[in-house]
C-alpha cells in the first residue's frame, strides 16, 4: 500500500509539472488545401511570433473525407479547436452543438469593417447567431474556349437555348475517326456536380431545392441536362462518373470546350491554355440565372480548450495581408477589401467573370438535408437519370422527398 501511495504522489507531481510547462496554449487547426506546397507553415510562424504563448498545430486533412473526419472527430471527443468550414455543413455542426458563437467577438474585432460587404450576412446561421468568419470565397462561372468559338464563328451563350446550340456545334470529330473527340461541355456527374445541374435547373422561376422542384419548370431543368447528354451527346461519355479532376483534365486537354468552375482553377487552366480560354457568367435558363456561391469560413469549435487563442488565430487568417497570403495558396478570392483591391494573382477576365456572376450567386438551403443532397442523393440520382435508369421527374421527386423530411 505504501508503495502505491508513493506512486500516486510521484504521478501527481509529474502531472503538475507537465501542466506548468504547458502554460502556453495550443490551437489545433484543421484545413484542406489541394496544394500540398502551401504557406500554412509561414502563416503559423508569423502568428506565433506575434502571439507568444500560443502554439498552432495546423493539419491539412484531405478534402474527400474532410467532413467525415470532422464529424467523427467531434463525436469521438477529439475535435480540433478551430477548423475551415463551409456553409453546407453549418446546420449539422450547429445541431451537434459543435460550434462556438463568435458574433460578439466579431463585433468587437477591428478587422470587421475591412471585410467584403454582405459576407457576414451570407454566413449567418439559421438561428440568427454567427458562428463563421469568412476566409475566402468564389463564384462559379462558365469557362469557355475562345479559340474554338472564334473558329466556328460562335458567340458566348447567354441563354440555355443558345448554350445548347453552341454546345452541339462545339461537339466535333476533329480527327475523322467517326466519333467526337471534342465535346461541347464537361459535365460533372460525380459528387460535387450539383452546381452544374443547379445552374440549369434552379434558375427556373419558382424552382428551388425546397419547393417547385417537381413542377413542370423544375422537371424541364433536369430534362434539359439529361437531353444534353442522352440526345445531343454534348458531354463526354464518362460524364456520369466524372469528378473535379476529370472535368478539369478534359478541359485542359482540349477534350471539352466549356465547363463550369470557379476562379480557383483559373491559373492552372491558363498555364496550359493561355489566352485560348476565357470566362463569363452561366447562361440564363428558364427566366433566371443561378450560380453557386462557394464559401469558405473558419470557426471556433465549442470544445476548444482555449477559445480566445483559437479566435485570435482565425481572425489572424481573415486580416489584411494574411488573408491574401492564405488565398494565394487556395487560388480563391480574399474576403478582406484591401487585399482584394491589390489582388493581382488571377488574370483580370476571371476576376471580372466572378464579380459579374455575384448578383446571381446563391447558397444551398441552410438545412441539415443539404449534406445528404450534396453527398449522396444528388450524385446517385443524377447518374441514374443520365444513364436512363430513372426519368428526370423521378430524380426531382427523390430530391424533393429528401427536403420534405
Amino acid at each position, binding site marked *: 500500500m505504501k508503495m502505491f501511495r508513493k506512486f500516486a504522489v510521484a504521478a501527481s507531481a509529474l502531472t503538475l509539472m507537465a501542466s506548468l510547462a504547458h502554460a502556453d496554449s495550443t490551437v489545433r487547426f484543421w484545413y484542406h488545401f489541394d496544394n500540398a506546397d502551401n504557406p500554412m507553415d509561414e502563416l503559423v510562424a508569423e502568428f506565433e511570433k506575434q502571439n507568444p504563448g500560443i502554439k498552432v498545430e495546423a493539419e491539412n486533412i484531405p478534402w474527400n473525407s474532410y467532413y467525415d473526419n470532422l464529424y467523427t472527430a467531434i463525436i469521438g471527443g477529439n475535435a480540433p479547436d478551430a477548423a475551415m468550414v463551409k456553409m453546407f455543413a453549418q446546420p449539422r455542426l450547429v445541431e451537434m452543438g459543435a460550434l462556438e458563437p463568435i458574433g460578439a467577438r466579431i463585433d468587437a474585432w477591428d478587422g470587421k469593417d475591412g471585410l467584403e460587404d454582405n459576407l457576414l450576412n451570407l454566413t449567418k446561421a439559421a438561428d440568427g447567431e454567427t458562428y463563421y468568419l469568412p476566409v475566402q470565397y468564389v463564384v462559379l462561372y462558365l469557362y469557355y474556349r475562345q479559340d474554338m468559338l472564334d473558329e466556328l464563328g460562335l458567340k458566348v451563350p447567354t441563354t440555355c437555348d443558345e448554350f445548347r446550340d453552341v454546345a452541339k456545334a462545339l461537339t466535333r470529330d476533329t480527327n475523322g475517326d467517326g466519333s467526337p473527340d471534342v465535346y461541347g461541355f464537361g459535365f460533372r456527374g460525380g459528387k460535387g456536380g450539383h452546381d452544374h445541374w443547379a445552374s440549369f435547373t434552379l434558375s427556373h422561376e419558382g424552382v428551388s431545392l425546397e419547393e417547385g422542384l417537381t413542377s413542370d419548370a423544375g422537371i424541364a431543368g433536369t430534362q434539359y441536362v439529361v437531353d444534353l447528354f442522352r440526345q445531343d451527346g454534348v458531354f463526354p461519355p464518362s460524364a*456520369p*462518373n466524372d469528378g473535379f479532376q476529370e472535368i478539369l483534365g478534359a478541359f485542359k*486537354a482540349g477534350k471539352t470546350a466549356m465547363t463550369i468552375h470557379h476562379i480557383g482553377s483559373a491559373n492552372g487552366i491558363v498555364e496550359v491554355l493561355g489566352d485560348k480560354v476565357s470566362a463569363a457568367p452561366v447562361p440564363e435558363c428558364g427566366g433566371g440565372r443561378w450560380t453557386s456561391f462557394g464559401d469558405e469560413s473558419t470557426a471556433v469549435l465549442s470544445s476548444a480548450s482555449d477559445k480566445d487563442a483559437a479566435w485570435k488565430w482565425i481572425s489572424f487568417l481573415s486580416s489584411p495581408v494574411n488573408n491574401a497570403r492564405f488565398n494565394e495558396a487556395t487560388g480563391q478570392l480574399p474576403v478582406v477589401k484591401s487585399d482584394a483591391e491589390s489582388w493581382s494573382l488571377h488574370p483580370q477576365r476571371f476576376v471580372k467573370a466572378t464579380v459579374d456572376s455575384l448578383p446571381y450567386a446563391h447558397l444551398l438551403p441552410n438545412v441539415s438535408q443539404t449534406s445528404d443532397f450534396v453527398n449522396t442523393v444528388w450524385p446517385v440520382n443524377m447518374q441514374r437519370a443520365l444513364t436512363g435508369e430513372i426519368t428526370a421527374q423521378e430524380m426531382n421527386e427523390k430530391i424533393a422527398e429528401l427536403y420534405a423530411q
Partner: protein
Amino acid sequence: MTDTTVPDAGPTGRPLGRRVLPYAMLSPAVLVTLAIVFFPMVQTAWMSLHDYVLFRPNHFEFVGLDNFRKALADEVFWISLRHTAIWIGITIPAQVLLGLATALLLNQDFPWRPLARALIIIPWALPSVVIALMWVWIYDSNYGLMNDFLLRLGLIEQAVPWLARPDTALGAIILTLTWQGFPFFAVMILAGLQSIPRSYYEAAAIDGASTWRQFWHITLPGISGVLVTAILLRMIWVANSFDVIFVMTGGGPGYSTYTLPLYAFVKSRTNLDFGYGSALAVLFTLLLMVVVLVYLRRTGKAVSR
C-alpha cells in the same frame, strides 16, 4: 495483493500453475481480440436497434427491429444484395480457375521458373488503392489502354466509358478484382501441388491413365484441402472488400456498383446514419455466415469422402 496462494494439486493431478498457464498466456491475445473485434461487433448490433444519426448525438432512441424492417423494404438494399451475389459469384470462380491454371503452369519445369513465380505475386502484393487507380486509367475512355487496345483490334467502334455505363461498370470492377486476387490462389494451389508425391503420377502413368484422368483422380483430390480453405478465406475477403469499388466508382453510376458493405459504409460514414448502417452490416454478416456454413458443410463432406 494478498493472493499468494500455495500451489495445490487439482482434480487432474496437475499443479494449478500448470493449468492456469495456458489461460494466462492466451489472455493478452484474447483480451485484445475482445476489445477490438468483439466489442465493436456487439456495439454494432446494439446500434442497429437504435435510431442513431451521428449529427444528433443526443438522440439515441431504441426502435427495436425497425432498421431491419426498413432495410428489407429498401430498394437499394436489394440492388446491393444482388450485386454482392454477382460480385462473389463471378469473382471467386474466376480467381480459382485462373489461379489453378497458373499454378499448373508454374508447377512445370521451365527456365526462369523462380522468376515467374515471383512476378506472378505482384498483383496480390500491391495495395488495393493503387490497383484501383491503375485500372481506372486502364478503363479511361479518353486515354485508357483498354479502349485503345480494343479499338486497334477492331472489336469496338468507339471508346466505351467502361466505368460510367451501368451495364459494364460492375463487370469492369470484377475483372480488376479477379486480376488482383488470382495470385493468391496460384500460390496456395502451387503449395498444394508440390505436396503430391511424384510416385502417384508415375504409378498412374504405368497404369495407362491419361493426363486428364491423372488431374481428376490425383491432382484435384491432392489440392482439395488447400482449395477449400483458400476459397473460404477469399470468399470472406472478397465479400467484405469494397476499397477497390470505392476508389474506382464510389458505387456509381447510380447504384450500379453498390454492394452491401459499400452501402453500409456510405450510410454510416457519409450520411452519418449509424443506426441504419449498422443494421445493414448486421444483416450482411448474418447472410455471409449462412453462406459460409453451407459452404463448409457441403465441402466438408466432399473433402472427407
